[in-house]
């Protein structure tokens, strides 16, 4: 009986020490990966590698499962966009000449540029929240509220949570996202763009008298001091007008989804 007791107690002791050792190793690795600079770099690189592979496979899967009709519709849509762009190009040439002159004048008066930090997407939320995790945090000067854009100047989200070596970015299509914006149509209309369930965003409380058109460009208005003006949010895709209502609302389609980019720029409007 006593031999049995000794055996059981030895087994329990061994089990407890094995468990303790397992927990210790896990905690040490977790601390190394989240607190040490080199650990966070290894973590960031491995997560970036995995998310790149995952995104590539996801795109392949998406391409296989997209129906032929969808592709035809997409081609027609793109063709009409190309013809619109051709017209815009002519306008752009004339405008660019004007802009060059203004730029020279502006350069004399003040030289303002935003501080930008390049970051990589290392995780993506697919649940109710539309968010991404980037590999730069408070150690690189990232703080809450800063705009996150992709290289072509399209705003994709706002930094909503900052850790030492990583940050959470709430995408503009997220239901909790709201960004001061302006519609560049016949007149400049200012409002708040809010995310909602699904792919589109909405802008409410636009007075009935304002003339809006589908495909008007929506940009950031600059009313939020952390988000500079002029970053493209998307295009007006639908105008909801009710004659009996005081206001009209528009649905906005973003030009990029979170699957379309893996590198972002965090814009800090601090004057350098």
């Amino acid at each position, binding site marked *: 009986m006593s031999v049995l007791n000794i055996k059981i107690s030895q087994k329990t002791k061994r089990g407890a020490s094995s468990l303790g050792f397992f927990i210790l190793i896990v905690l040490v690795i977790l601390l190394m990966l989240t607190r040490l600079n080199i650990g966070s770099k290894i973590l960031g690189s491995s997560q970036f590698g995995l998310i790149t592979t995952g995104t590539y496979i996801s795109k392949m899967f998406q391409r296989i*499962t997209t129906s032929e009709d969808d592709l035809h519709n997409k081609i027609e849509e793109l063709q009409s966009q190309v013809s619109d762009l051709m017209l815009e190009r002519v306008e752009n040439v004339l405008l660019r000449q004007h802009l060059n002159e203004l730029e020279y004048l502006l350069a004399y008066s003040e030289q303002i540029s935003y501080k930008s930090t390049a970051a990589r997407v290392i995780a993506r939320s697919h649940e109710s929240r539309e968010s991404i995790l980037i590999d730069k945090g408070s150690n690189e000067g990232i703080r809450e509220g800063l705009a996150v854009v992709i290289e072509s100047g399209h705003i994709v989200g706002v930094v909503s949570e900052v850790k030492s070596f990583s940050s959470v970015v709430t995408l503009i299509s997220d239901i909790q996202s709201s960004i001061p914006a302006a519609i560049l149509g016949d007149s400049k209309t200012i409002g708040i763009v809010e995310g909602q369930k699904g792919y589109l965003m909405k802008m409410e409380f636009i007075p009935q008298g304002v003339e809006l058109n589908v495909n008007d460009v929506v940009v950031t208005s600059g009313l939020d001091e952390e988000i500079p003006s002029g970053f493209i949010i998307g295009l007006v895709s639908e105008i909801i007008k009710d004659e009996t209502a005081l206001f009209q609302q528009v649905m906005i389609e973003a030009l990029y989804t979170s699957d379309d980019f893996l590198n972002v720029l965090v814009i800090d409007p601090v004057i350098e």
Partner: protein
Amino acid sequence: MFYELSLALLFILSILFQVSFIDALYEPLNAIPAHFIIGVLVMHRGDALHGIAWFIISGFALKIFGFDSALTISYIAVAFIGALLATRMFANRSVYALEGLGILMLLVFILVNAIPELLNYSITADYFYSYNHALISVIVGLYLGFLVARNLEHLIENLFLIKKR
């Protein structure tokens, strides 16, 4: 020591694989709970104590490395109920016991996670529908995991000349 070290590395790698690779996949592939499946395998084929630690630490670690909307309390509940089921009800090391354990653990996880919505009367059928793919993945994943684990155990027994009882 080798076992604990391998288990710890498996834990970290499976978390990174879950939050960065699987979550980036297109629906319904992003519903595969790979880290959860490996945890159930550890609970059943390995030691229940390690299984408890696996799920409890997961509740915190998944939130550090990525996005996980599940409640930490659901992981803690799954850890203890899973250990109880693994030692009392599904102690048999067959694939049926493993599948039973995995399905019950997932159901506990889903139910505990639904408590806030249940209390607010805001739960809809869509909530449970969203776990359909996870349930199928757990059934398939555990079967494949069982085959891998059994072959791995045989390989280790032959490699290190471990005598069978």
